[in-house]
């Protein structure tokens, strides 16, 4: 399997189709970042697209191609924050009265839908940590790298998120 660096080099050399593999590899972490910030599946999908289109346009500015994953994560955070600011300029997610639309075409079972809604109700930092850990399968160190928080903080946030989720899910029952 080609490394991210090799794929980046190939794209820069004109092999545009290889960018698809980079998108395939990194879209899950990017989606987790997007969803954790915008809290809406459809907007999140738009952010994921926008992130990769921007990344493609700026690929020549990536000085260390082996750092593609953290570089694209930073772009994703900026895109998501822009999208979140446009969608709901003031109401924080956890204080919003209505639960954000998270369903992806209604394909999830009701149990999973409820769990996803509960995740979306977490505080932003906890939500981001949970999504990167469970949905994107990043380890604590990688999450620390993406979010700029220490591994200790990430661990605490996930632990707190567990407690909150248990409480929220009991309330739903």
């Amino acid at each position, binding site marked *: 399997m080609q490394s991210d660096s090799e794929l980046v080099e190939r794209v820069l050399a004109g092999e545009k*189709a290889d960018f698809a593999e980079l998108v395939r590899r990194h879209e899950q972490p990017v989606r987790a970042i997007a969803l954790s910030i915008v809290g809406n599946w459809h907007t999140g999908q738009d952010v994921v697209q926008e992130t990769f289109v921007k990344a493609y346009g700026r690929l020549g500015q990536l000085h260390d191609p082996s750092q593609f994953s953290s570089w694209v994560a930073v772009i994703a955070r900026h895109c998501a924050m822009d999208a979140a600011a446009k969608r709901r300029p003031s109401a924080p997610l956890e204080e919003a009265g209505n639960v954000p639309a998270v369903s992806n075409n209604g394909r*999830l079972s009701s149990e999973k839908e409820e769990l996803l809604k509960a995740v979306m109700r977490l505080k932003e930092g906890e939500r981001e940590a949970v999504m990167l850990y469970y*949905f994107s399968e990043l380890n604590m160190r990688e999450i620390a790298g993406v979010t700029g928080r220490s591994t200790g903080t990430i661990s605490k946030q996930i632990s707190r998120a567990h407690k909150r989720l248990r409480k929220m899910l009991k309330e739903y029952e």
Partner: protein
Amino acid sequence: MSDKNEIGSRLRALGGELRGQGSVVDDVMSRVKDMPVPMSSRPEQRDAVIWRFIMKRYGRIAAVAAVLVIAVVIGVKMIDKVTPAAYALQQTIAAIREVGFVHVMEWSAGQDEPLSIWIEYNENTEPLTIRMSLPAWKSPEDGAKEVLWQDNVAQVYVPKKNVLLTVAEKRLREFRKLASSLDAGELFKKMATLENIGQRKVEVTMPTGDQDKIVIASTGNGLTKKFYVDPGTRLLARMETYRVDADNNETLEATMDFDYVRPEADVFAIQVPEGTTEIDMVNTIIGIPQGEMTDEQAAKETVRQFWQALIEQDYQKAGAIFSGVPADKMQEIFGKFKVIRVVSTDEPIVDAVSKTTGGYRVKCVLQIEMNGRTTQQEFGLLVRKGGSEMLPDNWMIY
């Protein structure tokens, strides 16, 4: 299964299901299909498109110089087909030597303010002085900037922060080297190679009734650059950059207007208002030496010395570690509270910001006194090596 594990398992299962849905690969690829192939800023890619390489790596000013040379060389070569190449090159170089000054204004689509560059050349076509006025849209975070480069030292004035930085800016130093070594003949050969291998298509249109300039259009990689050359002076008057879509529709992205008149003397001097914070990174010792310490140890030691200086209210020393900020400015920023002691210092970490800029973030908990109250506060400082170009082994906070 415990509650904790159950939540974890359910989250993993949900993640697995989400991962299997909603891929954006096709959507992204259909959107990038018509975009030009991105060009690397790294040197190994430079032969692909020489002027884009120069623009990315050495900055806009170098690109201007390169474009100037390339365009004129091409112009002379294409226009005067009976002239031997050697003579044409000599003529071109002579034309640039005679110029002495160039002023370039770059206008980008959707922006009202241009980017302005003035370059003064010596008799060998080497830049002596460069002045740039960068509009705010070029740097939304810092705002507009005025840059003056002379004798390997650059002064950068940032009105939004009212700061004047004096730096031995590496890229500008490299630029000078590059600009001095620009070999018109080599550039022309590379341009001809690109044309021969089909990466560029070059068309030359001679002046007509409406158009008094020679127009050289160079197309490739989704871009067309049109160079307007004065047939009398053989100097570049204007350059236009168009993005070309799949149907060959052109959208104007940027124009550069060139003139070669000696500017007013004050162009090559930066005037700053009273009260400007001046940070001289050339003549001030900034940061602490690494010595035998590892990078992590040096990062931690830098932070320790910084807080110790503040505990002792030695703003001169603290400022020297803090990127060379003057003592009075440091007192203004950090004098609002008193640092009593450092309660704890975390191990240095690489986070999203420090990964981009190099170095680490070091988090500390301090006991501070402010407005008569003693509290504990967490601070996260960014530390890196080489921020001071004069002392590249020193570590500093930035």
